[in-house]
């Protein structure tokens, strides 16, 4: 099996990357989603722009209380980050469930966010934590919240000439209590359903379902109920109320309950 022929350029910086981006190019980060698509010829870009040499996008750091994650940060680096496991434990719980160690050794945080698989863990956790996605293009820069970023299955608001450069988590999301639960047929497989729950220090709550739709879905009614003191089971049932299919709805409700209880314990 071979990908269709393509031209290849390895960029060493963001400035070098941006002019190469366009309708016929694909950005190669960790390659754990793009390369299968190339091998199966489901993706046939004319140009592959390799950003593995763009080391300026490989960082996890706290900045004035906020967490900044460079888009080329490997999933394994997020998993091993003490800053993340101590201050943003939800991200640690989520990234441990991404694929297998061999996938996380190459896969990147930015790649997962741009690929936007509805069964992916990181988009769900990042949505629950109020992430903002920073983009750059030759023409400028912009930042979007999760609600504007995730448009559908494998579909985001990124324009072909834009590069995701950073994921930012607001200072309010630090030191929150959190829980993540999912169901997959075997460890590391794509999850059938899941849920991320966050109880913020200011009393607010976030609850996001995985597998309930094409994008990470915030369960706003359940979030309000939780902030108002509702029991985990009650809020979880409310979150899963509109999920299609009896089995999936039951899974979502149960996993949401576990995530909320973990965040409440």
């Amino acid at each position, binding site marked *: 099996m071979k990908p269709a022929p393509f031209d290849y350029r390895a960029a060493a910086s963001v400035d070098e990357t941006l002019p190469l981006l366009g309708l016929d190019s694909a950005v190669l980060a960790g*390659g754990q989603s793009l*390369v299968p698509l190339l091998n199966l010829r489901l993706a046939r870009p004319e140009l*592959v722009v390799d950003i593995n040499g763009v080391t300026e996008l490989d960082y996890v750091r706290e900045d004035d209380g906020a967490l900044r994650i460079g888009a080329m940060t490997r999933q394994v680096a997020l998993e091993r980050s003490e800053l993340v496991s101590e201050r943003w434990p939800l991200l640690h719980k989520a990234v441990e469930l991404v694929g297998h160690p061999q996938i996380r050794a190459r896969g990147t945080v930015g790649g997962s966010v741009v690929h936007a698989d509805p069964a992916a863990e990181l988009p769900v956790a990042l949505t629950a934590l109020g992430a903002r996605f920073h983009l750059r293009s030759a023409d400028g820069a912009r930042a979007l919240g999760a609600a504007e970023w995730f448009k559908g299955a494998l579909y985001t608001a990124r324009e072909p000439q834009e590069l995701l450069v950073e994921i930012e988590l607001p200072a309010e999301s630090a030191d929150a209590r959190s829980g993540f639960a999912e169901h997959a047929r075997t460890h590391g497989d794509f999850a059938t359903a899941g849920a991320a729950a966050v109880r913020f220090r200011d009393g607010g709550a976030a609850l996001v379902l995985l597998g309930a739709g094409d994008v990470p879905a915030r369960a706003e009614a359940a979030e309000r109920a939780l902030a108002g003191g509702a029991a985990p089971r009650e809020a979880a049932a409310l979150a899963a109320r509109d999920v299609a299919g009896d089995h999936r709805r039951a899974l979502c409700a149960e996993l949401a309950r576990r995530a909320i209880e973990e965040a409440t314990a």
Partner: protein
Amino acid sequence: MRIGVEINGRPYEGEVEPRTLLSDFIRHDAGLTGTKVGCEQGVCGACTVQLDGEAVRSCLMLAVQANGRSLRTVEGLAPDGELHPLQRAFHEAHALQCGFCTPGFLMSIEAFLREHPDAGEEQLREALAGNLCRCTGYLGIVEAVERAAREMRG
């Protein structure tokens, strides 16, 4: 494109197209056929090798991306013909039948055990979940890995 890769401590050079997968470079250009190619979409784990010490799927990397890097394949586990403790344990615990998946299992779990020498059975099973075996089943494999881990801890 001309690339140079160090594999098991030896330099290999080759002329590759950008679309050449690292797994094909290892087998066809370097002639190291211990690394197997199964699904070529990152699911089966048969092509697992170590890139600068980390286990990775060689079918999900382009050969050009390994230029100047250091790789280890199953041939590097027993450089002098003496089996690695993991290989010996796989043999003794009947952890293989056809052997096609074995190099991938070995390279995955060798990297894992270096980082987690004291892993318990549950952790080992999770670490093995990224490699598929379609004939032996996994009991023998789990037993072999536990046996080797004990021996390697000394």
